[in-house]
Structure formats: C-alpha cells, structure tokens
C-alpha cells in the first residue's frame, strides 16, 4: 500500500488540503466547481474512487452541503469545499449542521467580494466564517493556514476538532495559499483520542435506541437549553484549542498581527524592521474561532502597540481590540481585496515605521 507518510511533497495548497483529507480518513467529498478551489474536487474526483470512497459533483453548493449533512449524520468523515459565493449558498446547510451538532469539514478558499467580486486573495470573509455565517446564532471552528504545510496539517486538525466538539469546522484560506506551490512534509495522521459516534443514524437495529439528527426544538426551554449547551462548548474550545504563532515578540514594542497569506508578508516586514533595529514582532492567530484572546491580552501587557494588517477594511481588528488590555493602541492597515491589492513587505515596513515612532 502506498502511504504518503513523512514524504516531502511539492504541491499546491489546495492539493495539500485534498491529501490531508485522505490521510485523515475522509472518503466522501461533495462539491461544486468554483475558482480558486477547484483543485480540491479535481484531486479528490481522481483519488476517492480508487480508495472505495465517493465523490459527487453536486447540482449546487446547496446540494453539496446537504449531502455533507446526510453523510456526516451517518457517522463518517466527509467534507466539502468552496469559495465566497459558494460559501454563501452553503450557509443554510452549515446552520442546520450546527443546529444538529454534526461534524463535517468545509474548506473556504476566499476570493474577493461582495457579489461575484473576483478571484484574487481576500480576507473579507472573516466575519462570515467566525460569526457562524448563517441564521440562528452559532459558531463553527475556523482554522487559518498560512502555508502549504498548514493547509495539510490544519485540514487534518479540522477533522479531529470537528469530531471531538461535534460541530462543523472550516479551513479558511485564500487564493494565495490555495494556489501557491510550496514544499511540505506529508506527515502521517496524528494519533488523537476521538469520541465514538453513538448518535449517528445508521438504521435502528433491534434493541438499539432510535437516533434522530435534528435541529427543531419546540418544547418549552429546549431551544434555550441547546443554546446554553453550545455556548459552554464554545467556551471549552476557547479554553483548550486556541492556537497561534509568535515571531520576535519577546522584546517587541510594536506587534503586527495578521492571519493567513497576509501573515507571511507581515513576517517579512518584521524581519526587515528588525534589520533596521526596530523592535517589531508578529502575532499570527492560527485558530480564528476560537480566537486566541489570551495571547493578545498577555502580549498587550508587554508591547506598546499593535498593528493589525488585513486584506479587507478591517474585520479581525474587532477581535483584536476586544482581546487586548484596555487602552492598548491597535492600529490598522488594510488593503481591501481585489486585483493588485496584495501589500508588499516594503509597504508594511512603512506602516511599521509610521506607528513605531508614535508608540515607542
């Protein structure tokens, strides 16, 4: 049997997602073509039939997310992927999955919007992803890879967290990370203690209780109790699953913060600043929900100010401001998504210098 274990590979970020899904034991994929994520269904349409799995090119994004709902309800690992306009269509199904406490992995390779927008990198779907996205008041796990290695590692993590916490998990990247080729290590699936799925709908055999996967709660207090249960689960996620990366933050006076592709540019800008003697650092959230609030709070006690960089007019900055200590200055530099809007490291260095003078 050919296993990709511990191999070095040189592939696109999107392909790394597909490879990770297979390594994580996912054998069911449902999707619909949309740029810039179509490498994922293309890869899986080739590989899943060979592995005894199922690949369905659905009639719509709505069809795809509901096939994921039906597959996850039977207890298997399954996934879908899309981008902006398609993710909007999937929100109905994501809400039902959240309401039914169903796991399932959704990959969002963000593109510019609103509307048809464009196929360039964007981070303007941060709110859509981290606030749930659909109706009713819920959250989903959101992981933000910044490299092809993380496309692979975080996709596997998404499956595990989704199963453990019984909620949908999203891998939130953009067209830069999805389309970029980079070498990475194809690590074997980590050994994680996963819960059984006694709730799964598999046919009620003699003597077994009836299993119902549903989100309709009409009884007095039932819906309210559900919301408080999920609220507690989100808190548990925040306590146990926050992940982030810090670069040069020990003595940093100005801390850049950015996720995904933007964090790569920010890291280069920080290195340039350091070479000029500027005490800059980088805090990169890896989990966007749960948001690593404590990391921000701790760092805000040591540094003088933050500079939040996003490919939008500012969305994550709300979470940064809610996380840092009171009176901490949080500056912002954004480039709304679209062709030609990706900032250069030099551009960010100018911003670092601008705020370093006033806050240091």
């Amino acid at each position: 049997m050919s296993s990709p274990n511990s191999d070095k590979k040189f592939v696109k970020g999107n392909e790394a997602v597909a490879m990770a899904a297979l390594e994580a034991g996912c054998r069911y994929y449902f999707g619909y073509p949309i740029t810039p994520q179509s490498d994922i269904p293309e890869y899986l349409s080739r590989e899943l039939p060979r592995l005894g799995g199922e690949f369905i090119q659905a009639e719509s994004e709505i069809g795809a997310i509901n096939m994921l709902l039906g597959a996850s309800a039977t207890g298997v690992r399954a996934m879908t992927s899309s981008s902006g306009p398609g993710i909007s269509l999937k929100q109905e199904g994501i809400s039902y999955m959240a309401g039914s406490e169903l796991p399932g992995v959704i990959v969002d390779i963000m593109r510019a919007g609103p509307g048809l927008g464009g196929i360039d990198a964007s981070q303007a779907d941060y709110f859509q992803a981290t606030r749930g996205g659909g109706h009713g008041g819920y959250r989903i796990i959101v992981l933000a890879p910044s490299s092809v290695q993380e496309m692979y590692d975080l996709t596997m993590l998404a499956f595990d967290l989704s199963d453990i916490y019984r909620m949908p998990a999203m891998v939130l990247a953009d067209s830069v990370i999805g389309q970029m080729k980079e070498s990475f290590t194809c690590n074997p699936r980590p050994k994680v203690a996963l819960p059984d799925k006694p709730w799964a709908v598999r046919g009620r055999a003699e003597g077994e209780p009836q299993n119902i996967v549903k989100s309709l709660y009409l009884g007095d207090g039932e819906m309210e109790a559900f919301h408080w249960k999920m609220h507690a689960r989100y808190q548990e996620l925040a306590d146990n699953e926050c992940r982030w990366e810090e670069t040069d933050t020990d003595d940093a006076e100005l801390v850049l913060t950015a996720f995904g592709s933007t964090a790569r540019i920010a890291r280069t800008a920080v290195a340039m600043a350091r070479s000029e003697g500027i005490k800059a650092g980088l805090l990169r959230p890896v989990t966007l929900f749960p948001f690593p609030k404590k990391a921000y709070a701790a760092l805000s006690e040591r540094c003088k100010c933050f500079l939040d960089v996003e490919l939008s007019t500012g969305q994550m900055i709300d979470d940064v401001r809610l996380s840092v200590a009171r009176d901490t200055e949080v500056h912002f530099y954004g480039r709304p998504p679209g062709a030609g809007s990706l900032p250069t490291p030099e551009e960010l260095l100018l911003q670092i210098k601008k705020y370093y003078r006033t806050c240091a």
Partner: protein
Amino acid sequence: MKNVFARPDSLKDVQTHFCPGCHHGSVHRLVAEALDEHDLRSRTIGVASVGCSVFLYSYFDVDVIESPHGRAPAVATGAKRTRPDRIVFTYQGDGDLAAIGTSEIIHAANRGEDITVIFVNNTTYGMTGGQMAPTTLPGQKTSTSPYGRDISKDGAPFRMAELLSHLDGVAYSARVAVNSPRNVLQAKKIISTAFRYQVEKKGFAFIEALASCPTNWGMKPLEANQRVADELIPYFPLGVYRNTANL
C-alpha cells in the same frame, strides 16, 4: 384468534399531530407497512423534510435525519452513498419538493440515487397555514392566492410524477391516492414496489401521493376526501408513469 389488522411495527404507538381527515396518517401507515413487508425497519434511514412531515421521527420507529427545506434528496444522497446497505427514504410535501427543492429532487432522480421518495401532494403549504403551492390547482383559493390561482401569472401546477418519469435515472415513478379503499390498496402495492426496487438496487423510485388537507382547504374531512376524487385526480391522474421493469 387470528390477528387480521394491527399497527405496523415500523410505526410507534403514539397519537399523531395531524388534523382530522388529513391523509398523512394513511400515507405514513402504507410506508410503514412496506417497511414491515420487506423486513426493513432495522436498516432504514428516514429523511424528514420541513412542513407537517417533519415529525416523521415521532411516528416512525426508524433512525431519522431532519433535512433543511427542500434538501431531503441531497441529504438522502449523502446518507445512501455512505451507507449503501441501508434503505433510505425521504418524505416531502409539495412546497418542499416541487418549489424550494426542485433542484435537489431533479438531480437526485437524474443521478439515479438508490433512494425512495414519498411525495405528499395536498396542493397547499399545510404547516405554514395554507399558502399557494406549486401544485395548487388553477383557480384554487389559498391564503396567498385569494382570487384563485391565476395560471397566466403563477404558472400551472407541476405534475411531478410525469415530469420525473422522463429522466433516465428514474427506475419507478407513480402517483397514488388514499381517498378510497380501492385507491389505498393500489397505493399499498405501488409503495411496496418502490421499496422493493431499492432492496433490489434498481435505482430511484418516486411515489406521489395525493392527499387531503381539510384544515387549509376549509372543508370537513369527508368533503376534503371527496375533493381528492373530484378535483385532484382529474388534474393529477393516478398511475405508474415509469417502471424500468417494463422497459
């Protein structure tokens, strides 16, 4: 003493929420009888839709997934592809299947998904209070067609059993009614065939069941039952529209 009539094992011993004279109960029973007949209860997954049919899990003693409005055929596709040895059926109303869910039903049928679809057509949105459905008859007054359905503006009612019968992926497509003993017996046979086809992995089977909705039709149960014969059956003729066994 010989027991000649009893509740099917696949139905729970509970009271339903259905209105007096509603045909959902009869259709539920016929589906349960088919599951019993083929000994499928312990390996069946039902997919409930949105509307009066959502409480499927309260009445059927099988595992059930609740689907978003209109999406039951997609949900059933996901379930059946991952558990091909299970019997998967959807139970959907006319607004669910023939309006908001047209895309899902047509594509599941066209793929020839090995599932059974029970489509209850009572010409109205029952749960939400009797609004105009895609199957509301020409001239029929509802809460959103107070002057009667105007087919020049609202379109003509969909005949789903005929429409789906033209798709190559469909193994079986039929329309039944449960308004008379004769029609019930015919419906029982046809619903049983639909489930047998799934057991035999023949492909997609579609059963449209004409049904009454006395509450939203503003009729007494007997009047509503009579309307099925007088108005529904003439527009939606009963019969088997596609049967791959005959091809």
